[in-house]
Structures are given as structure tokens and as C-alpha cells.
């Protein structure tokens, strides 16, 4: 029984971020450690609702009230157990998830929501520090069935771990040099230290998951052809993500100094981990403009600042949202509201309600600036306001407009899976594509989404594969392929 009046006793409190001047000097995570007992007080704000909307708001179905209560009671090991019951990688989500759970927290109706993400991360980190979370749980009974997981992002890893524990022989293929997908190369280090990722991968290895990196399965000249994949494995999971970037159709796009956000972030991260010697795109001393108001944009923003950009501007086509929940997104749906990420505190500028019209070029064909108009965003378009044209100086432009879907040449075409009109891989209730024995999980099937959806899909697809291979399954199946957040 939770403390029924904890929410009346404690106010919401979250960890402090390190001082901006300090944190800009390194790539370490931005948050300061939080007092254990302060975390417990935050957990005590949980009201143990009859309908825990947070538990619905979380695609994984994290059983938030229960681990809040265990945290309040200082029973961290059990809290970790309860957390891992629904989430293979809470240390990732604790850092990287935008916490739809908090948007749907009942306490948030008339008060600040419970700091769920904080509690999650604290539980996860403590369980990792104690080693409890990383104890391998190899299957006691092997099935002898072989499953290939293509792609090592959160969906692929979650599926791999679930299937390995179910006793299958799992091989994870990654076309990049090292395993982890966006968690390895997309996310800036200041959001997640890579040691966190590596520690978890060791657990998967100990549970029997085999990782094969640097192999572009089904790609031109790859060692692993589609045919050999199908031959060697009883089932295949496509977890290649949604990697085709959304482009911008603006005059001057071809100019030098205009890059896709992911190209920029990946090389930055590779340099940090030491697998690439030097930056190919460096923001140092540059006027940086980021097109796109989302999280990837913010990642570029913080990265550019740390690289020593002269200025950083992030453009958002939407007008600035209100400071609190917008009426168009009533509780408990994910709130539209002004969100200030850590990077945004560190300098630079955000410009809302603007659309870029043309890039200005230098004489030698590099970008020099960008023309913007103010106006109103409408579905599928933008109505510019007359006479609102402005020019923003820019010698590095990063396009962070999201992704349209998985790449189809190579693996997907080779497998022959059906692609939907939305450009994602078609699948049935059990996450199987139109090709027998081939499954899809994560953004490749869903389109770009959140890490929690990816892990949830990985878990559900694993259940689908297990049932396909064995006739039935006991693996949890947290999300239906068509499930979406409340709206």
C-alpha cells in the first residue's frame, strides 16, 4: 500500500544539471547524482492509482506504481526486478525516453507529475552498480532453433535478449562497426555514457547472443546474403530501424556545409569512441543552424556547442508551444508544451514558427545563410506571413527533420517483404511480415518512434517468433503492432 498522502507531503523535484560552463567542457552526462532518499520521496508521490495512466502511457507497460512503491520502501532489488519484468533496458530508457508516462500521470492533472523517469533511472543505475541487473540469465533448456536479428538498436537487442532467454540461438547482425544502433552512434554521449550500453551487451553475450558487426546483411557484396540468412536461420527479425532521412526541398540544398543531422552525429560519436580519427563535419567556430525542432535537432545542438560552434540556432516550423500543456492535448495524452532540453540551456537560440525558403551561398558554393519566413503551420503546408523574410547567417546547416522509413534496397527487397503505403514493413498481429518466418520489430515496422516503443516491439516480436518456432510462448507481449499512444 503506497503512502496515500505522499503527494501532499512532497513537491516534484528532479536532479540538477551540472553547471553549463562545466558541462560544455566535456561529453559526460549532464545530470548530477540525486540523493537516494530524495528519490524515495519522489517515488512516494505516486498515488497508486486505480487506473495507473502512466502504466498505459508507457508503451512497455512499465508497472510504475509498483516500483515506485518498492523504491519508497527502500527495496531497490525488488524494484529492479519489477522494472525488468517489462523493460529489458531501463538504464537506456531512464536516460533517453521522453517519458510519456509522466505526461499521463494522474497527479499531473492538478499538480506536477511524479518524476517517474528519475525513479526509473535511479532503480536501473543502482541495479547496475550492484551488478544485479546484469546477472546473465541463460536459458536452462536450449531449443536448437536459430534466429537472426538484423539491426542492433533497442528493438533488435530487446528481441535478441528475449529469444536467447527462451532458449533459441540468436545472432545479431549489425552493419556498423560496433553494436548498438542509434544508442551507439546517434545519441550524444552527454545523454548516455557508452559504458552503460557496453555493460548490457556483455550480459546479452553471456546469455548466448552472438553479435556480428560490420556486416550489411543482404547488401551489395555482403558476406551474408539473403539466401544464406534464410538458410542458416529458422526465423529472421528485421530490426533495421527507420533510417531514410526526411529531406528538405529548398533552393541551395546542394551547397557545401549542409548536412543531414545523423551524418553529423555519427561521425562525432565515432571520434569520441575512437573509431574515427577526425571529424569530417566540425562545428567549431561555425554559425550552426539546425533545421527541425525535435530531439535529434537538440542532440545536434548540444554536440555543436561542445565542439565550439560560434553560434547555434534551431529552427522549428511550429510556433512556440505554451509553457504548460496545450489545450489540444488534454491529459492524459502526450502534452504539447515547451520543452527545454539540457542542450537548450547551454547557449544558442531556438526560433519558432519559421520556414526556410532558400539557402544563401558563398562564392565557392558553400552555405552562408538561410532565408526564413514567419507564418502558420497547417497540415501538409505552411502559410508564410508577407514581409516576414529574414536572413540568418549559417556556415553549417544540419537537417534534422526525422526519417521516412526503412531503406528498402538490399535486405528488404532481398527478403521480398511487403512495404506498406506508409513506407514501412507490413506485418501481422504476431509481427511477422508477409514472408513466412521473417518478422519485423521497431521503427522498420512502425516508422520513426521512441526507444520505448522499440524495446516494446522487440519484446513482442520475440514472443511472435517464439510462438512461431515452438507453437506457443510464455514470453510477454506488451504491444500490439498497431497500438498507438492515446490521442
Amino acid at each position, binding site marked *: 500500500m503506497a503512502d*496515500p498522502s505522499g503527494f501532499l507531503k512532497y513537491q516534484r523535484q528532479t536532479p540538477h544539471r551540472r553547471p553549463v560552463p562545466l558541462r560544455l567542457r566535456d561529453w559526460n552526462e549532464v545530470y548530477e547524482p540525486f540523493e537516494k532518499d530524495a528519490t524515495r520521496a519522489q517515488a512516494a508521490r505516486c498515488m497508486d*492509482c486505480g487506473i495507473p495512466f502512466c*502504466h*498505459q502511457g508507457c508503451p512497455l507497460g512499465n508497472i510504475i506504481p509498483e516500483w515506485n512503491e518498492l523504491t519508497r*520502501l527502500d527495496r531497490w532489488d525488488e524494484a529492479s526486478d519489477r522494472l525488468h519484468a517489462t523493460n529489458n533496458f531501463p538504464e537506456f530508457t531512464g536516460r533517453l525516453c521522453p517519458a510519456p508516462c509522466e505526461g499521463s500521470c494522474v497527479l499531473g492533472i492538478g499538480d506536477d507529475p511524479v518524476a517517474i523517469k528519475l525513479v526509473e533511472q535511479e532503480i536501473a543505475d543502482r541495479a547496475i552498480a550492484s551488478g544485479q541487473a546484469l546477472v546473465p540469465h541463460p536459458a536452462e533448456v536450449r531449443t536448437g532453433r536459430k534466429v537472426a536479428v538484423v539491426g542492433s538498436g533497442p528493438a533488435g537487442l530487446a528481441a535478441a535478449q528475449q529469444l536467447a532467454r527462451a532458449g533459441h540461438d540468436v545472432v545479431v547482425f549489425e552493419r556498423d562497426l560496433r553494436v548498438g544502433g542509434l544508442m551507439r552512434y546517434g545519441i550524444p554521449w552527454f545523454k548516455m555514457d557508452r559504458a552503460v550500453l557496453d555493460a548490457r551487451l556483455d550480459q546479452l553475450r553471456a*546469455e548466448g547472443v552472438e553479435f556480428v558487426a560490420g556486416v550489411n546483411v543482404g547488401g551489395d557484396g555482403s558476406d551474408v546474403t539473403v539466401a544464406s540468412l534464410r538458410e542458416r536461420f529458422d526465423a529472421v527479425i528485421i530490426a533495421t530501424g527507420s533510417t531514410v532521412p526526411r529531406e528538405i526541398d529548398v533552393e541551395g540544398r546542394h551547397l557545401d556545409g549542409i548536412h543531414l543531422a545523423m551524418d553529423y552525429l555519427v561521425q562525432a560519436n565515432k571520434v569520441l569512441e575512437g573509431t574515427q580519427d577526425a571529424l569530417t563535419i566540425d562545428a567549431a567556430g561555425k554559425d550552426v543552424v539546425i533545421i527541425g525542432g525535435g530531439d535529434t535537432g537538440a542532440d545536434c545542438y548540444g554536440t555543436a556547442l561542445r565542439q565550439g560552434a560560434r553560434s547555434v540556432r534551431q529552427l522549428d516550423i511550429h510556433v512556440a508551444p505554451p509553457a504548460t500543456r496545450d489545450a489540444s492535448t*488534454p491529459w*492524459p495524452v502526450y502534452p504539447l508544451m515547451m520543452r527545454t532540453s539540457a542542450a537548450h540551456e547551454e547557449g544558442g537560440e531556438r526560433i519558432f514558427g519559421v520556414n526556410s525558403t532558400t539557402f544563401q551561398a558563398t562564392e565557392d558554393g558553400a552555405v552562408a545563410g538561410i532565408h526564413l519566413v514567419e507564418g502558420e503551420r497547417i497540415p501538409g503546408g505552411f502559410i508564410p506571413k508577407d514581409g516576414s523574410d529574414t536572413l540568418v547567417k549559417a556556415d553549417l546547416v544540419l537537417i534534422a527533420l526525422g526519417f521516412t522509413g526503412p531503406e528498402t534496397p538490399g535486405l528488404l527487397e532481398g527478403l521480398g517483404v511487403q512495404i506498406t503505403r506508409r513506407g514501412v514493413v507490413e506485418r501481422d498481429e504476431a509481427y511477422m511480415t508477409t514472408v513466412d518466418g521473417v518478422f519485423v520489430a521497431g521503427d522498420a515496422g512502425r516508422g520513426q518512434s521512441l526507444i520505448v516503443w522499440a524495446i516494446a516491439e522487440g519484446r513482442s516480436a520475440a514472443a511472435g517468433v517464439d510462438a512461431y518456432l515452438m507453437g506457443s510462448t510464455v*514470453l*510477454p507481449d506488451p504491444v500490439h503492432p498497431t497500438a498507438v499512444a492515446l490521442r
Partner: protein
Amino acid sequence: MSFSAIPAPQGLYDPRYEVDSCGVAAIADLKGRRSHRIVADGITALINLDHRGAAGADPSVGDGAGILVQVPEDMFRAVCDFELPKTPVGADGCAFAAGIAFLPRDAAERAAAKDIIAMVVAGEGLELLGWRTVPTVPVHAGVGRMALDVMPVFEQLFLAAEAGADGVRPFGLALDRLIFPARKRIEHQTAAEGCEVYFPSLSSRTITYKGMLTTAQLPAFYPDLTDVRMESAIAIVHSRFSTNTFPAWPLAHPFRFIAHNGEINTVRGNRNWMRAREALLATDLIPGDLSRVYPICSPGASDSASFDEVLELLHLAGRSLPHAVMMMIPEAWENNPTLDEKIRGFAEFHACLMEPWDGPACVTFTDGRMLGAVLDRNGLRPGRWWLTDYGTVVLASESGVLPIPPENVIERGRLQPGRMFLVDTVAGRVLDDTEVKESLAQEQPYTEWVHAGTIALADLPSRVQSHPDPEAMLQRQQVFGYTEEDIRVLITPMAGTAAEGIGSMGTDTPEAVLSARPRMLFDYFSQLFAQVTNPPLDAVREQVVTSLASVLGPEGNLLDPTPASCRSILLPLPVIDNQDLARLVGVNSDGDLPGLAAAVVTGLYEVAGGGAALAAAIEQARSDADAAVAAGARIIVISDRDSDDTLAPIPSLLITSAIHQHLVRQKTRTKVGLVVEAGDAREVHHVALLLGYGAAAVNPYLVLETAAHLAQEGTLGPKVSASKAAKNTVYALSKGVLKVMSKMGISTVASYTGAQVFAAFGLEQAVLDEYFTGTSTPTGGSGLDVVAADVASRHALAFQTNDAALEHRGLPIGGDYQWRREGELHLFNPETVYLLQHATRSKQASIFKRYTDTVDGLSTKGGTLRGLFTLRTDARPAVPLDEVEPASEIVRRFVTGAMSYGSISAEAHETLAIAMNRLGGKSNTGEGGEDVERLLDPSRRSFIKQVASGRFGVTSAYLVNAGEIQIKMAQGAKPGEGGQLPGHKVYPWIAATRHATTGVGLISPPPHHDIYSIEDLKQLIHDLRNANPAARVSVKLVSEPGVGTVAAGVTKAHADAVIVAGYDGGTGAAPLTSLKHTGQPWELGLAETQQTLRLNQLRAQVRVQVDGGLKTGRDVVVAMLLGAEEYGFSTAPLVVAGCVMMRVCHLDTCPVGVATQNPVLRARYTGTPEFVETFFLFLAEQVREYLAELGFRSVDEAVGHAELIDIENAVSHYRAGGLDLRPLLHVPDVESPLYCTKPAQHDLSRTLDAKLIELAAPTLNDRQRVRIDLPIRNVDRTAGTMLGSEVTKRFGPDGLPDRTLDVKLTGTAGQSLGAFLPAGITITMVGDANDYIGKGLSGGRIVLRPSPHAPRTQPGIRQVIGGNTVAYGATSGEIFIRGRVGERFAVRNSGALLVVEGTGDHACEYMTGGRAVILGRTGRNVAAGMSGGIAYLLDHDPARVNTELVEIEELVESEIDWLEQILTTHVALTGSRVAADLLDDFPRSALRFVRIMPRDFKRVLDLRAEAASLGVDADQMIMEASRG
């Protein structure tokens, strides 16, 4: 049954639910002098009890009336055309036996019956003296058509026995013993051969005349009764109130020995036990093989008839009638430390022989010499007696049934709980209870027998108990389907606090049979509860009458009690821990107790074999049990331990009941006691079921292990050790069972065991017949295969081959009480709550459609029964939508539920009221009263004023300002239970509205203390109608099997509307076992109600409302087609107003300001009336669309058209395969309207009050002072109330200045004298009065004093002058009574001053305010549940005070003066001698007083004083203190 128009079971109607209640009277000449006057007086008394009976749709068809007298020997000699043998002088009883035979109407059948009779009589060696045609004049008597249609042919049979060796023919008792087998054989044989004969009596001592008649028809119907030669010294008369309108001649009372006012709640168990005992019965007193009289309890008989049959057997086999009655209705001896040792011995000994026949009862009995009466242990029926100076004793349900001049009455008294009143007409004396019991107790050395024979469980040597591997606990939990939630929600509170958990906001999960996930077998059963026809009990406050103890061990021959009969083990609680179990298993390990030897029968089966293996294993267990019995085992332990990877446990309930029923059938059941060692039982409901289906004790080993583990891991805090946690759990489960029993009105575990007071839903009838014999379901359902599949699924989880696959996932998460993604389906889930709020707040019909589609979709997935229905839109041509009545008309049929101000905030309460007032719908106050400001504001008041058991805020003004008054008999969340508003929720504004004290907790009793039966309800309806003749009176019931029958009774009690609530709704807090496991879906109750009302021709006069989880337009339309014309909503509009189903209403922490009084949280409230209006208008529009599609233009046209519901393509759930909901859709083929077409008219113009109002015209018109002086009789009920309502209507809540209206009444007042009397009226009653004096007193004054003509031989202090339940719910005013009154004086008094000179049990119960002065002896249990006010007791006996909440203190100085003043007033008003004597030397006599001071109340008074001295706000200080 023959001679009955009761229809065969059809649809959901089943005649077995028919119940009755009644008025009863008895008259005897003390000296045994026979006269016709006694008979005539009996009939007069009967007619004066008419208001306690009832008539059906046709007023000329009564529910039954009858009279039992001594055999009028002289008359029979005169009227018979054959010789009757001579009776020896001075004999008790005649040398012949006589009785009326109810013979078949068909001449051939009649001839056949008479042949059988002649044959049997001859076969029994008896002589058939002759037949006499009993004169009857049905037409002249005015007997109605329906009764005539089934009327038997009446002939009197006269029998005698051959003379013995001494040449004397047997007579009296000896003859009756010979007649008895003959009668039983005749009954059995004629029934078997299709020519059934019924004998109301056949005896040499007494004879019964009865029939399906009104009281007035009885004497006219049987001219014998008015023949002056009809002489008797004893007469028992009875007037019946049945819930149905179907005449059935044999169901009238009296029976052969008794007339019974009450209901036997445990009768199913009692009958089973009797059947089981038959094998061991033997007596020399009844010659021949006793088996020819079996079954003792005739199948299909009423509870009273079964009682009579067993009583007859016990009596004829050698016990005196009082002795036999005491066995069957023992007093509450268990918790009475003052009981005489010998009497205790008698009671204990007989407890080993037979379980009590438990339930409210006033049983009047006679054997022709003794006339007696006894009340049940709770005293739930009224009974008063008088002794006249000419030697007549009168005993009746009411005072005043015979016009006896007061000067002739030398003594008057009342029946008391569990006490016997006995008249010996031969000895010529009245025997009091103690005398009777002492003499019986001395017949045998019972106390020694008990000491020698019985062993306390704790005295058995301890034994080695099994210690299962703690590592494997998780696996065991998995095997038995434990969930994380079970541990957190169910087990943790029990283990930690020794109490069951509490929840709020009802339940919205599927019935077991509709669930998509494995369910426990327990879930298919729901607990029955008492409503209307009998009361639930308060096991907490009235613990003195309950008992959890029982005896375990074999029974012997019931008819030949010996010291060995009580060879048994005493179990203090029905739940036993592992050591106790080990003691029982090893009881004979040392070989010294072979008579109690135990054997273990194991209940495991090959899980792979499915249902067939399960069935086979049960058969094996049954034969194992047989073998064990044969081998001498006297205790059988049924165990489900030690399952493994191939053997799974048989559900403990299944195997327990299977073995129990089997042993009953084998008639070996009473040779053994059953103990269950169950791993699956983990909550109160489970234990209750195991007991209810035959177990004497349950060892729920796994929950105890789990509890201990919780303590070890620290969940329960540092103070609870592992052993304490287990003890707590044992206690919590036991207490919970007590509460479950109490809901059904059963007081002792001994009689609960095997009583089968459960309803089953969703199980195949064949499964029930085989394993739960006697439990039935009209709708079928799952078979053993499904049960086995569920077991297998749990078993598979426990015996996983690969644990890693489920790493971190030990137990399933649960999700029954709180929504969980991986848990059970809930109709209200994040999506539906969101859509509903969003739609109504943003006024978007399209979102509302998404909401209803989603909810209806969940319904279809098993969320509700109605989800299985489809609507037949093809049966009638659709009508254009614009021809359907407008939404503005439909919303008038919508009401919001009864949620009290107190449980929800003022903001939420007013939101609903304003919205409904704007729409023309109706909102409901709930039980908390209404503050005056709102009461008088038509836009903000609630149209419906609820009257619940706590009567909080129920004043004259409250009732006068009602559009409808609703009597809450039960509420969906926790039918059969009361409630409690803890002190920290009694904020100042709540206290003011409830007439209570800030910061002091309030208790609502489980029963209405003025409704213990249907005729009491009729009385309350009458009271309320008098309190506001313009208001509609409705009665709220909760769905359970038989609710239709209750609804019929309610209609006959003249309610205008009946509400059938589903079990699922319910916004209040409730113990979890009630929330989930009591009551049934409204679909069942509504359909049954509609069918029963129509079969009874009662539907036209009553409106039917349904409520319980209605959420969508489709829900409304289904309810409409099943027969409801009004629709209640609670949860949905609350959600609209902001509720998010936190389910913490009981904690006062509602974060959205709905269910809280905390001002900080109330500030977060965001609801508005507009949202609620939008909801109902959207809903009404949907209803219109459905009506158009179905082809109706109005709701009225559609009501009751159940044939438009289709179930063909319903059931897709694998487990629901056998479910057949067609009985819900049955439309009885009778000419009877489908909805209320002729609302009943209520004529109050001929009441005494009509006259009072006329005489009070100068006051009512001009505020002039008026004095009125009128005579009054017991049939003048509710005197003064309508007058009071006129005063309140005209002059407002404050009434008139004191003594404006003085009304003097002389005679005997009927029930409810001065109910709700407002200020300004004084009623001075000279004579005596019946029950419910000053009910709801609202400022008026009532003075009750004896007639000045009463003889001075009996001083007032011993005279019983008033009845039970005085000043129930009084809020202000004064009552002065010179004399004693009955039980529950001042119950729930919250502000009145009451003076009396003696009381029965439970005085000042639940009192919350006011003062009570008691100048004489009280009964037991004074001040139970008393949280406020002060009582002053003269010469008190501390043992009689229940000090759980109160202190006994000395008076403080200021009180002495006050008391002196009060006594002075008492003397002035009543002429009290007691008070006058005390005043003679007051300072001295003041020392004889103590005050009873509730601790909480005192604390608050002290805080108030402290606040005053500190100059701070007292209320704030109190609230802070009460929150701790």
C-alpha cells in the same frame, strides 16, 4: 406443490426464492379452561394484525391466515356422524386424532387418495374412524378467484389406535407418535401417485385451520371457527405477508406445532444435515422402522414447514416441545459470561448435536398443553405479552391486538432475544426463561458430559507439521494462481493488520465465465445477502450474538443423546493454522482418541487428463472418503498439497463440496467432520465458500506461508513477526467470514457450515447438481473441462521447463482491483476514461461515439453480460429518427446514483444535482442528508432523498423537501453491509449536515433497525409516505437470485418504484470481498424482476429502475428491453466530473477533488454541470438512434421487449460455451403490462392524522395553540407524522414554538408513533405503544405514560410500555417514557433527549449525539458503536456495557443539576414514580448514576474547550487532531 398457483420455474423466476413474513398472536387461558372466547379472541387479534399481512394484485386473495387450537373434542363428538373413542379424564389430548386433509380437487384423484389413506392407516395398525366434510363457505367469505382456482377439497380425518393391554386406547402424545408415521407415509405415497394430500395437522391434541385467505376471510370461510362449540384453552393465529401473489394453501401458517414470523437463513444447510442424520436416527418411542417417515424434511416445503417437521420429530421422539425448540433456536450463549453454568452446559451439549436454525424468528409453539414463544438470538422480531386478572395470557407481534381494558392487565412484558416465554396451562402458570431452562438443564448432567467429551483444539498435543521447502514457495503460489496483486492487495493488509483490505468504486471486470484468462473456481460463486425479507447483522457491534466457534467430530443418534454425543473437538475459529492442522491430523497418533481419528484424502489429479481426469480423481477421492469412514475415521482432512509436474491440485472448493454432498447422499456425513487443507484459498470469499459447502475448518496453508514470508521480507514493518503475520491472517479470514455470514443474517459458523448461501453463475448445471447439489443456475456455463483447463494453465506456469524465459516475472501481475495492462479487462481503462472526459468536456459527439464504441467493444469481449447480446433491428420496421421522442424527454428518465455528501465533495455533489435539475432528471442525496441551504434551493437540491440505515440528516424537513424518497435496502458495492465514515472525514460541514459531531466517526448499521422483514418495510414506506404524501417512495435493491421475488414483495408493500442495482457499480468504500463477490449483474436481477412482477400482475403499479455500471446508450437500451423504465448512473457521471478511478475514496486523498473533503484537494476539482448535461444529452441521443432502429417512437413502447435481444452470435469465449442467457429474455406469457401503466394510488384520508390535521387547522392556518384529545388503536400507525409534515411544509425546518400543538392520545398506539415529529408538537400517549416510537424525531416531544386505570400492582419500572427501536435516527426533540421498552432504544440518536425506565439489549447503539437517561435495568450490549452523545444509567451493570468505544464515568457537577431538572420534567409529564423516588433525595440518588461517554466524543469536547481557551478555531483544531 399442490393447492398452489405458484408458477413453475421459468426464465429467471424460481419459486424457491419465495419468502414470507408475518404477524403472529397467541392466546391462552392460564388455567387451561377451554372456551370459545379464546378462539374468538384469537380471531380478533388476527384481524387486528391485518396490516402485517398483505394481499396481491387482487385484494381478495390474501397471503394466508390460520389458527391452531386444541382439538375441540366436544364439538367433534357433536358434529361427527360416527363414534369417537372416549378420552380418559384429565388426559392431555384425545383418544382420537383429527385433522383436516387438503384433498385433490379431482374426484378420481380424491378417491385414490382416500384409498391410499385407508390402506396406510390399516397398515399402521390404526383405525379409520371416519371422514367429516369440513364446512366451508368460500363465496360468502369473499375468497378471490386465484385462490379458489387452486382450492383443495377439505375433509376431516379421524383416526384412533387399538387399545393396549390395559384396555385403554392410546391418547395424546402416545397416540400422536403412532399417527406420525402414518401421516408421513400418506404424504409420500399420495405425492408419488399423483394425488397429493396435505394435512395442516393430524393430532389428538391440536388442530389447524388455515388457508390462502385474508385475516377477515378466515372465520367466514370455516364456520367451525365461529361455532360456539369450538372451544379451546389455546389459540395461535397467524397472518402472512408473502413476497408473491400466488396463492398456495399449504403455505399458510400455523403448521402443526408452530407459527413462525421470520425466515430461516440456513435452511438449505439444516435440511442437508437432517437428511444426513437420517441414517443414524433411532428411537423406541416411535414404533417400527423409522425410515418409513423419511425424508424428515419434505422436499419443496417452506423454511417454516421444514422447521416444524424437525421440531415434530424431536418432540415425538422424546423431548418436550420447549426442549426441542431450544435445540433449534438456542440463545446466544457463546459470548455470555454471565450465563448459568448448567444452562451453558445444556447449550454446549446440544451444540454438538445440532446446528442452530439461524435467522430472524418469532416462533410461537404449542403441543396443546404448553403455549410458548421464543425469539431468535438477535431479537429481530417483535413480541409482546399481557397477563390479565381473569387469567388470560395474550402474546402478539404487537401491543393492542385485543381490546383489553387497562385495568384488567396485571402484567405486561415482551419477548427477549433468545429467551423463551412459556405458559403451562395444566400447571396454570407462566414460566419465565430461566425457570424453563434451568429445569431442562437439570435433566441430565450436561456440563459433566461436555467436560468429559469435548476437547479444545489447543489442548490437543502439538504435532510435527509439514515444512515445505521455502525455496519453492513461488512455485506453489503459481500452482494456485496467486498474483502479485493478490499478495499486495489481499494478503498484505490481512497479514499486517489482521483485517481485510478496503477498496472503492466497485468492480468493472468480467464475470468468471466471460473472462479471457484463467479464473479461480471460487469466482463463479457470489455471496448471498439479506435484503428486505430478513436483516443482515452487525457482527462488529453486535458481536455478543455471533460465534465463530464450532465443533468438529462425529454425531450420534440425534434422538438418543448420550455422553458420547458430544465427543468432539472445539474449534474457536473456522480458520486454523498449520500447527492446528497437525494436531487434528495426528489426533489419534497416540491411539488414545480413536473416536476422533483423522484420515487424509488427497485431491490431486493428472493434469494432462483434463476434465475427465479431474472427474475421475474426484470419484477416487469420494471412495477414499467412504473407505476412511468405513475404517473408522471421524475427521477427514481434504488436502491439495504436494502437486508436482504431472499432478495438479483439484480446486479445493470442488473437492470439498463433492465429498460433502457425496457423504450426505451416503448418509454418512454426520459421522465425520471435514477439514480442508487448501492452497488455493487465500481470501475471505474462498474460506466462506469452503465453509458454506461443508467444511468445518479451513487450513489455508499457502496464504499463511505467504503472510509469514511478507513479514520476513519486511513488508509488514518491524512490528509484525512471521508468526504474528500468520495469526493476523487467520484472524482476518475468520473475521471476514463472520462478516460474510452477517450479511446473510447468520450468526454462527456452526449453522453457516454447509448452508450453501451462495449463487453460482456460469457453471454447468450438471456440475452443480453433481458437486454442489442444491445450488442452481438458470443459465448454465462452464463444465469441468474449463475448470481443468484453468488449473492446467496455472500448473503450466509453475512447472516451466525454462525459467529464464520468464526472468523477473515470478507471479502474474494481477489487475483485478487496479487496472493493469497484462491484467483483467476493465470497462473503465485509461482509454475509456480519457475519451469520456474529453468528449463531454469538449462537447464532441464524435469522441463520445469513440467512447461508447470502445466501451461496448470491451463489453463484447466479456466485460458485461449485455455484451453478449445483439439487438434485433430486423424484427420491427425502423422509424424515422425525427419521430422518436426528443432527448429532452428521455433524459427525464435518467437519475444519478446515491452518493452521500461526505463521501463526495460539495462541489461534485452539487455538480450532479444542478445538472440533473436543469435536465429534468433526478439526483440523489445519498445517505448523508442535505444541508439546509441546498434543501430549500430547487436548483441545487437533490430530487431524491435517500433514507439509509444510518438515517443521517433524515429529518422532517429533509423528507418534506423531497420529490422522491428512496429507501436503500442495499448498495451494489457491498450489499448487506453498513458503512463507516471515519472521524477524519467528518469535517464541520459534514457534521452539520449529518447532525453529528465534527471529527467523530459515524457508523451506518448493516440493517435498517426498523426493517427486519417485509412487513417492516411496508411500515417504513407508510411512515415516509406520511412524512411527505406528495413524494414518490422507492426501494433500492441489489441483484441476486430471488431479487424479483423481493421486488414483488416491495411492490405489495406499496412502493412506487423499485431499483435493481447491479453488484458491479457502487462508488463507496467496501471490503474487497464484498466489492467483488457479493451480488450479481443487473441484467440477471432486472430480468428476474420484470418476469416476476409480470407473473404476479404487479408490473403495472410500480416503476422499475436499474443501475450499476451503465455507461453507453446501448447499455440503456438493453436495460429498457429487459424491463427498466428508468436508468441510474453513478460512476460515469462522476468520471465526467473528473473522477479518474483512483479507487481511494475511502482515504480522503482523491487528487481530483471528487471523493474528498480536504479543501486542498477540493480546490483541484474541475467538473461543471455542463459536462454532466452534455453526457446525458449525448446518451439520450444515442438512445433515440437505437429506438429508431428498433422501431420504437418512445421509451415506453420499448420497455420489456426482451424478445428484441438476440444471443445467437454471442459467445466466442471458450469458457462461455455452455452459457445460455435465454432465460433472461423470457417474456412470460401472461396478460400483464410491460411497464408501469397504473401507478398505485395511496389513500391517507382515513388515517388518524387526517383527523388530526383537520382538528389542527387553527394552528396550520393561523399558528394558534390547539389541544387535541383522541383515542388510538394499534391499527392507527404513524400517528402524528402527516400532521408534522404539514407543520414543516408550512413553517419550515424549525417548526413551531414549543407546545403550539398538544395532542393527547389514549389507548394503544400503532407502530411509529410520532415519527419525524417536528418542533411545536407534543404527543402525550396514555396507554402503551408499539415499535419505532419517535423514529426520526425532528424537534417534537413524545410523552408515553400508562393508563391511569392500570392496576397499581405492577409499578411502571417493570411494565413494558413501548416496543423496540425507540427514537431511531432522532435528530432533536424529547421523549419521556414511563416504563420499559424493547431492544435498541435510542439507536442512532443524534440529538434528542430521551428518558426511559428500562430497555432491552443494544440500548444507545450507534448513538452519535443527544442524551439518553435510563432509569432502570438495561439489556446487554449497551452503547455498542456509540460514538457521540451521552447516556446516563441508573444502577448500571458494567457487564452490560460494551466499552469498545465508551468509558463509564462518574457524573460531573453540572450534570447533576441538569439531571435533576430532567427528572423533574419526567415526573411532571409522566407521573413517574421511579423518578419521583429518586428526586426525594436527589444529591444522594445522583450517586447511583454513571454516564456513558464515548471516548472520541469526549476528546472532541475537550479539544473544543481547549480551543476556546486558546482562542483558536475549534473545528480546525479538531480536524487536525483527527487526521493525526
